């Protein structure tokens, strides 16, 4: 070895290396969390005993080999050409382009960890550049918990290829063979002397060299990772603590005016007569703009209504309050969510379309010694990110530039091009930081509004959605009714299982009249059920959409896991067995599953079932870990109960145990939660833990309080608290997370903690009180205690 191995820097140790005469490493603030495996440092040079001064290289003075096009434009995941992702400046700053949207999942940090590790960049020199929406980056839809999964390989490749080119540049300068040179933390050293060349110095040369082909790029052995799978601190948090950073709602451009919009209360309702005299009399209101009525399909269209333009947001809001508008009923005028719920429950009682089938469920059920039936209902939900949608648009002739908190800047660009009929090449979409998103901001309707209004008023416009707008005019999580039936034998073993699910599909937002649950949605917790009984059938029933239906953190997994995992506990109760033991028995022996072999069309989160099979051993493993963490089986104080649920979603496996305490008056608290997650290779354990806590509590908030209802086609709720969100005093008192060590391919972490939360909670309430929750929400917007259903034996 040609460089001194100076040993290991312990986590958080700022007292320098074990060797006191060794190199001084300054500024460990960001690197302090990195456990260096064997930190390569050019010992002699940095130890201060050499007069070596790095020469400034003039790239033109070197005779460089000719370079052809990049051979990395089409690797697994897309284009891995280093120049697309990495720019190294003369001062050594490493600018990494993040093409995914930052919404609190710490994607800036995780993407940078991947690139910087293979690049051997010094973390302290890393900066992020947020990409605009453009096809050259491949998929930018920050949705589906797949930023890491889609990009892990190609970003490693990009970093490693860039590093090789920097090493080659140094080798050319030194007239050595590249094998005599090695890159370490932003510098290249060599085996002949102690000279080093910094990346900033080499970057211009490296940029002219041939990009290596994939087979010639060496990725690090995972044991040599210095950033990947380490507790690297967030790149955004320090800014956040000072109120810095630009969210969509913070965008400010010269000459900008502010708009809010009065939208028709019903989806596809129309704007009738408008009187805006009073609005125009509000100080600061400049004018009003009538937007075209929307018609099906909803797509990402503006919803119509009247925009009020003001010199500040408050003026626009006051102006809107003063508008007098006759809204005209549209096709959804008759929608009443209470009546609709009853219809859906009736649909769930009738046989539906078979989506997966094993054995003969009808025969199995009629031969069973015990039959169990249960119906579950879950309402519409609103994503309600803390930052409501906001977008700014500016026209320059026929060119349009937008700044907005969007999860998918490419889809935004496409929607603008389609709906405003302009050439995509004339549209630039800048993604800002997102103040939460949870699926709401994958729908860029608010950007379309800004573009329409800016065109009309011929000035840059920022459209801000108020909380009322966000709650009343969303793309809602679908309402659902489900029926489950099971047959048990004399020993209480489940032999037959029927699951029927009814919900308006998200596709209803995109094709009018579409009322059939799609394979994608069915594959979120229904057709992929991992249970091991001889007779199994999954069916769907149709339901029409009357609101815009959209994705919400973990999507159909929420209601499917609620029903399936609650039902598993109900079966355990009927069989007189422990919930956890019975759950393990339902999952059965270790095996891999492919619902496709049983008639399901199963997308598996767009991953191949070979690369990401459904592995029951991983499910059982997290069940065992979480129950050990929670000390499952311990004697509980009166009014306390533990509940468990396990669910695979977004290719990750999570088991959650919730402890509840219910007072005799029905007041509920959550003393503790224990969660075990197997997400394959994890890029950042601390941010994974944060997503486990956040995803779980998001699910608890919805299950306890969340409900969007509609009357006469219009959403009833309007702001906190009629749309209620869980608060600090209602949060769990303790929350432990264990991440399963795994070398498997990376899976999702942003969403999969949400689905098991609600059933684990409901199962805990059952164990605490004997009351079975089958309808959500459990408490609702105005309650302060549990409204428990009548006790019944299942």
């Amino acid at each position, binding site marked *: 070895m040609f460089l001194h191995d100076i040993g290991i820097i312990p986590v958080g140790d700022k007292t320098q290396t074990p060797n006191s005469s060794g190199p001084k490493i300054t500024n460990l603030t960001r690197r302090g969390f990195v456990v260096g495996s064997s930190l390569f440092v050019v010992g002699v040079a940095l130890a201060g005993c050499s007069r070596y001064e790095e020469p400034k290289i003039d790239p033109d003075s070197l005779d460089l080999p000719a370079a052809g096009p990049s051979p990395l434009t089409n690797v697994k995941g897309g284009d891995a050409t280093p120049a697309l992702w990495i720019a190294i400046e003369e001062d050594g700053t490493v600018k990494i382009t993040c093409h995914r949207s930052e919404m609190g999942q710490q994607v800036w940090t995780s993407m940078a960890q991947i690139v910087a590790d293979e690049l051997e960049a010094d973390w302290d020199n890393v900066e992020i550049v947020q990409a605009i929406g453009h096809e050259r980056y491949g998929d930018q839809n920050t949705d589906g918990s797949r930023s890491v999964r889609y990009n892990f390989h190609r970003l490693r490749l990009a970093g490693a290829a860039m590093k090789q080119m920097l090493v080659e540049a140094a080798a050319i300068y030194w007239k050595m063979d590249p094998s005599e040179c090695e890159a370490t933390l932003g510098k290249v050293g060599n085996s002949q002397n102690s000279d080093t060349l910094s990346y900033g110095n080499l970057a211009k040369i490296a940029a002219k060299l041939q990009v290596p082909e994939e087979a010639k790029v060496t990725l690090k052995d995972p044991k040599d990772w210095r950033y990947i799978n380490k507790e690297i601190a967030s790149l955004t948090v320090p800014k956040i603590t000072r109120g810095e950073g630009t969210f969509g709602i913070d965008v400010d451009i010269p000459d900008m005016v502010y708009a809010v919009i009065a939208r028709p209360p019903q989806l596809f309702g129309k704007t009738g007569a408008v009187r805006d005299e009073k609005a125009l009399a509000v100080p600061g209101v400049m004018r009003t703009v009538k937007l075209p009525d929307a018609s099906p399909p909803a797509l990402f269209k503006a919803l119509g209504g009247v925009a009020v333009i003001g010199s500040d947001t408050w003026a626009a809001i006051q102006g809107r309050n003063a508008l007098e508008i006759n809204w005209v009923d549209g096709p959804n005028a008759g929608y009443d969510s209470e009546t609709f719920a009853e219809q859906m429950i009736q649909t769930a009682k009738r046989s539906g379309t078979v989506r997966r089938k094993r054995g003969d469920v009808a025969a199995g059920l009629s031969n069973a010694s015990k039959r169990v039936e249960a119906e579950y209902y879950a309402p519409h939900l609103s994503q309600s990110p*803390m930052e409501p949608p906001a977008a700014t648009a500016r026209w320059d002739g026929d060119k349009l530039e937008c700044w907005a908190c969007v999860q998918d800047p490419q889809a935004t660009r496409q929607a603008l091009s389609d709906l405003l009929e302009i050439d995509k090449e004339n549209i630039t979409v800048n993604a800002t930081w997102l103040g939460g998103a949870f699926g709401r901001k994958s729908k860029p309707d608010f950007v379309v509004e800004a573009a329409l209004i800016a065109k009309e008023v011929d000035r840059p416009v920022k459209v801000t959605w108020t*909380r009322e707008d966000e709650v009343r005019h969303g793309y809602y999580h679908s309402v659902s009714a489900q029926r489950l039936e099971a047959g048990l034998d004399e020993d209480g073993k489940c032999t037959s299982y029927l699951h029927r699910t009814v919900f308006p599909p998200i596709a209803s937002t995109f094709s009018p009249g579409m009322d059939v649950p799609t394979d994608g949605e069915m594959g979120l917790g229904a057709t992929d059920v991992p249970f091991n009984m001889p007779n199994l059938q999954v069916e769907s029933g149709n339901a029409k959409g009357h609101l815009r239906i959209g994705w919400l953190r973990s999507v159909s997994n929420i209601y499917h896991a609620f029903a399936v995992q609650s039902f598993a506990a109900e079966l355990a109760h009927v069989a007189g067995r422990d919930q956890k033991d019975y759950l393990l028995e339902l999952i059965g022996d270790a095996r891999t599953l492919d619902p496709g072999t049983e008639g399901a069309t199963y997308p598996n989160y767009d991953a191949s079932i070979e690369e990401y099979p459904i592995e029951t051993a991983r499910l059982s493993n997290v069940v065992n870990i979480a129950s050990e963490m929670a000390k499952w089986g311990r004697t509980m104080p009166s009014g306390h109960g533990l509940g468990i649920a396990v669910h695979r979603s977004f290719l990750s496996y999570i088991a959650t145990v919730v402890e509840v305490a219910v007072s005799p008056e029905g007041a509920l608290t959550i003393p503790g939660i224990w969660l075990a997650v197997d997400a394959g290779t994890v890029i950042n354990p601390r941010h994974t833990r944060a997503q486990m806590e956040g995803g779980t509590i998001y699910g608890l908030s919805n299950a306890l309080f969340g409900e969007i209802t509609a009357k006469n086609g219009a959403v009833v709720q309007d702001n906190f608290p009629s749309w209620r969100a869980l608060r600090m005093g209602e949060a769990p008192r303790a929350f432990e997370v264990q991440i399963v060590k795994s070398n498997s391919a990376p899976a999702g972490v942003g969403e999969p903690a949400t689905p098991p939360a609600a059933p684990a909670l409901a199962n805990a309430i059952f164990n605490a009180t004997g009351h079975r929750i089958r309808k959500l929400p459990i408490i609702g917007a105005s309650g302060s205690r549990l409204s428990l259903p009548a006790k019944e034996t299942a």
Partner: protein
Amino acid sequence: MATTLNINGKDETVEAAAGTPLLWVLRDHLKMTGTKFGCGIAQCGACTVHVDDTPTRACITPHDSLAGSKITTIEGVAGGAADAIRSTWIKNDVPQCGYCQSGQIMAATALLEENSNPSDDDIDAAMSGNICRCATYMSIRRAIKEAAKEL
């Protein structure tokens, strides 16, 4: 109507309609966007600032009621409690998306200025007005307790 406000120790003269809440004066007029809008009706805490050291919802506080008051925002909050909160916030990576966190930091700082050793119940009482949809509550509680120790 011109009003002079003392914000983060500096006098600022703003020209905004009578009754315009401080929130929009900060954000739209002074371009101080660290203070956030979340509900507009004093329900979420995203807009929390300090007025004469008391946590205050900027979204329902008319700016013209604040002449002569000392206004502190996330951009300017300083001192022992604020430093401790910022440092434990960073050490624990408390924020996720960060949108609610200006309000959380302002509320937590005010709590520690009042009470240097808050119990769980004190934290619940002081922080339950601040909604975090990313649900960073566990980290916030941990970080407040650590900050109290640092004080």
